[in-house]
């Protein structure tokens, strides 16, 4: 093969590689290096595993993981199910104005989280729109932001509302890749809509479901803005707003402890990797059945 032809792919890849190395790889390596260091201005001292040990001495570190686990359990299934539901609806060729609906569903994803959280906080006000609506039906005011249970529900609602659109577009892409003839054959065999959904759509969407679950898990682990804004940089009632991201932020920018903050970041990388590995293993097992 011509030498120049063999070099061409590398040439095309090089801008991406360069950006990847500069903006992702180097910071990752630096943060790994920092996680074993104590940083005081210009002086950087090797402290071994001290930063990681310090994390486990702090009971709130484990609490932060428990909180994100609860957030993931409370949001990811709803996000995935709603996204599939909306994707199936949007994939129906008889529905008019698909472009409009796609935009509407996707809009929350590109809306500033600060704006989203602020608007929802107005809704969650003790005398806000939601409690006023509940009052019409004789229901008492819900302590949306001052009770651990309702505080979590309040966060779940914002996270689900904000996240569904992105996954809807992913599922829609998956659905549009499904060969229409499969559905036509099923129609000839007299399959109902439910049968088609559970026996054709869901199995064919499995790779997208797996990818979406992994992405949603990683996003869930990184939850920061919504609890931080809703509870104004405090930990909220029953410390529900203390997520790993909030802990990382406070360690970085209040304590300015980059060593410990890097250790927290690497614990997140590790947990993300383990959860993704489990999800891919489970997904693969299902495929082989």
């Amino acid at each position, binding site marked *: 093969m011509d*030498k120049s032809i063999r*070099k061409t792919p*590398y040439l095309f890849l*090089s801008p991406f*590689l*360069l950006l990847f*190395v*500069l903006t992702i790889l180097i910071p990752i390596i630096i943060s790994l290096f920092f996680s074993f260091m104590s*940083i*005081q*201005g210009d002086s950087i001292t090797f402290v071994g595993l001290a930063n990681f040990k*310090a994390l486990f*001495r*702090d*009971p*709130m570190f484990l609490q932060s993981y428990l909180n994100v686990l609860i957030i993931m359990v409370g949001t990811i299934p709803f996000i995935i199910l709603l996204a599939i539901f909306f994707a199936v609806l949007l994939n129906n060729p008889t529905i008019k104005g698909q472009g409009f609906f796609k935009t509407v569903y996707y809009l929350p994803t590109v809306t500033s989280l600060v704006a989203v959280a*602020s608007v929802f*906080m*107005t809704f*969650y*006000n*003790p005398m806000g729109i939601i409690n006023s609506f509940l009052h019409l039906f004789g229901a008492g005011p819900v*302590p*949306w*932001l*001052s009770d651990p249970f309702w505080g979590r529900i309040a966060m779940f609602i914002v996270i689900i509302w904000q996240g569904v659109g992105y996954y809807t577009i992913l599922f829609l892409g998956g659905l549009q890749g499904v060969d229409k003839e499969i559905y036509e054959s099923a129609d000839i065999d007299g399959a109902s809509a439910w049968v088609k959904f559970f026996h054709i759509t869901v199995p064919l969407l499995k790779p997208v479901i797996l990818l979406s679950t992994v992405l949603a898990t990683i996003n869930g682990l990184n939850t920061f803005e919504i609890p931080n804004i*809703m*509870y*104004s*940089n*405090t*930990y*909220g*009632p*029953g*410390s529900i707003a203390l997520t790993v991201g909030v802990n990382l932020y*406070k360690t*970085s*920018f*209040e*304590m*300015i*402890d*980059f060593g410990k903050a890097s250790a927290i970041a690497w614990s997140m990388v590790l947990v993300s990797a383990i959860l993704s590995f489990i999800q891919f293993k489970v997904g693969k097992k299902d495929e082989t059945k």
Partner: protein
Amino acid sequence: MKKKGFLGLTIAALVLVLGGCGKKEASDKSSSSNFSTAARVKNADLKVYAPKGKNTDWLNGVVDRYNKKYDTKINLKTTDVAPTAITQKLTPLLVGHEVLPDISFIQDSDITGILKKFPKSFENLTSNGMENQIGKLIYSTKTSSLKATAPNHDLFGVPQDLGMVTMFYRHDIFEKAGIDAAKIKDWDELIAAGKIIKRKTGKSLLALDANGETSLVTIIMQQQNVPLIDKKGNVNMTGTATKNAIKIVDKLKKSGTVSYYSSDKDRYPMFQDSAVIIEGTWLAGNMTVNYPKQSGLWRMRTIVGYSADDQGKNPVNGGSSWYVGANSKNKTAALQLLKFAITDKASQADLLARGSAAATKSTYDSKAGKAEYPFFGNQKIFDVIKQAGNNAIVVYQYPYASDANNYLKMAVYDYWKKGDLNAQLKKNSEQLAQKYNVKVN
């Protein structure tokens, strides 16, 4: 060989790009110790990180006066940085040894963390002689607080405002209830007044945080001369002062005279609808902008005494200062300007006129300090701030101060929900101690 060539090319590109990224602006290499003897800088564009608003408007006014007086051409190039975002904005520059802005506006609660990790990041005003020139003008509580947790206990910031806590009250509501708010001596009397107000006007006395009231708890602790964090960095969370403060908040709760807010979003609307707000003096300036319909209805006084026998210290909450980057491009010009800002009577008077509680003592005796404010029923509000400033507590701002407040908040919330104050304070204080390796009293 080909692979090596490609790798070499990539590395070379990387070095070039990284070299470009790391390119630094030239910094002012002059020694900071001779800023006052140095010739006045005639032309400079000063890079400023500050939240746009009354403080930057004031600084622009200072520049106008400065340029007029010294026939200079100093300009401000201001980047709008929210007070809560300043650390995020500065730390990447500090870590990367980048040139800092000439002037940064930093809250007193945030500076300790920066100076602890980067002690040479900002101009040391003690070693460059500026403290000698301006120190006597400033309330000692402000300088003591700034110096207590700074490297070598030196002064690094040019104080902007005092964070005195005062009591704002609705004159019309108290009048309707037949109570003279100015005569209320202590918390018990205030609570008794609150009950009458509730009965006669339906208004709440105060608004508390439903997620654990700590603002009032720390204020009442300070009245007892016990700040949340002491000079040595120990956290006062399980002691008598904390428990006494929580007991007073309990009394307020049980009196049925308080309302509750559950987020910062509904905090100030709830405050606005209450008869009393206990907050930093900074609120005075904000109230005139945010509560225009209530003009003439509010008054200010020093906070009610801790008890009938013991008036207590005046609490402190907030406050900010200006900092000059030690490696900044125009640090001499910045230092000269800030020295002018704090020593120029017209500039300090202008600060008061904008509703900020200036840190300089003599300003309160000037004409501006005696001004009457229509929003406060033509009250001379700076008399109140001066009185508060003369009896203020010294607070210590350690980097974990904000988190210590969070742990106290959790303890108060847990106590409200589960009872057993001692156990909740002990549990949360132990967790704080484990996290930061600090002693908890």
